[in-house]
């Protein structure tokens, strides 16, 4: 099976994008480390290439940095691709892809709710799971829970 064109093009078109080493990939889906400033352009390019379905969007805390992970899939060709973006932990900001994939709306709100990643350009970036008056972001590794009347 020949390698699809976009796997080579993506590195040439977007400088700073690195393919994740094959031995680090466990699910067989090609993955790329992307610079935060280019993520909206990369997703736009991939959407033009047929990746029209956002399977999942989640964020992870690696103590020194946050990583936002996008799983995209093409409904026509059944191809899948993973994008990983490392962002600054002190100022976790990233462009929202909700204008391109409306399904990212609640996923980005969840990442904001639990980890505090701010998606700029999101239409309604408010807490989705926790109550509105919650303090802190509970899935951060350094989150310390204050006992309240329910503990």
């Amino acid at each position: 099976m020949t390698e699809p064109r976009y796997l080579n093009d993506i590195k040439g078109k977007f400088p700073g994008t690195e393919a994740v080493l094959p031995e680090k990939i466990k699910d067989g889906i090609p993955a790329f480390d992307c610079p935060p400033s280019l993520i909206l352009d990369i997703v736009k390019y991939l959407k033009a290439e047929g990746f029209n379905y956002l399977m999942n969007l989640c964020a992870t805390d690696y103590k020194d940095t946050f990583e936002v992970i996008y799983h995209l899939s093409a409904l026509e060709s059944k191809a899948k691709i993973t994008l990983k973006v490392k962002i600054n932990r002190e100022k976790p900001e990233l462009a929202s892809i909700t204008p391109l994939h409306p399904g990212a709306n609640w996923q980005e709100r969840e990442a904001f709710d639990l980890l505090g990643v701010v998606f700029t350009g999101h239409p309604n970036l408010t807490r989705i799971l926790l109550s509105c008056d919650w303090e802190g972001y509970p899935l951060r590794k350094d989150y310390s829970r204050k006992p309240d009347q329910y503990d």
Partner: protein
Amino acid sequence: MGILLDEAPYILEKMPGGGIIITSADWLINWSRANSLWPLTFGLACCAFEMISTNMSKYDLDRFGVFPRPTPRQADLIFVAGTLTKKIAPKLKKLYDQMGEPKYVISMGSCSNTGGPFYDSYSVVKGVDKVIPVDVYVAGCPPRPENLIEGILKLQEKIKKDTIKNNDRAQIFK
């Protein structure tokens, strides 16, 4: 007095179309309360399905006079079935406050008893009794319908031991 407190009343004298019975007010009130427990269902997680199953025809809670109600105004009992999170806890308190006296609470399953597997979680209340007073705790994760029925029978036993004297739940003769 003090007669006929614990046993069912029997007909002392037959009359045309019925008979005369003697019993205590305690017995009569407790008998009617214990046998018409209308629960407000408060299903929160997987325990809710065991509660639904208990209400359905196979286990048939109707034979104990337990008949689910959709509103707290008509309910005597509330089943708290499942994980109570801090977000829903004020709503549970509000529903409990809207129920008319006398009111009873059955806490169903590990999560609502103590927090269960989510004891260390940031968002789960460590037991319904932090929010509302509980009469019967039903253990299990989730409890089988038989366990819930046993809990209801225990609650009926508890109600039948109640007395209208010195009762802070329902002081109907004060």
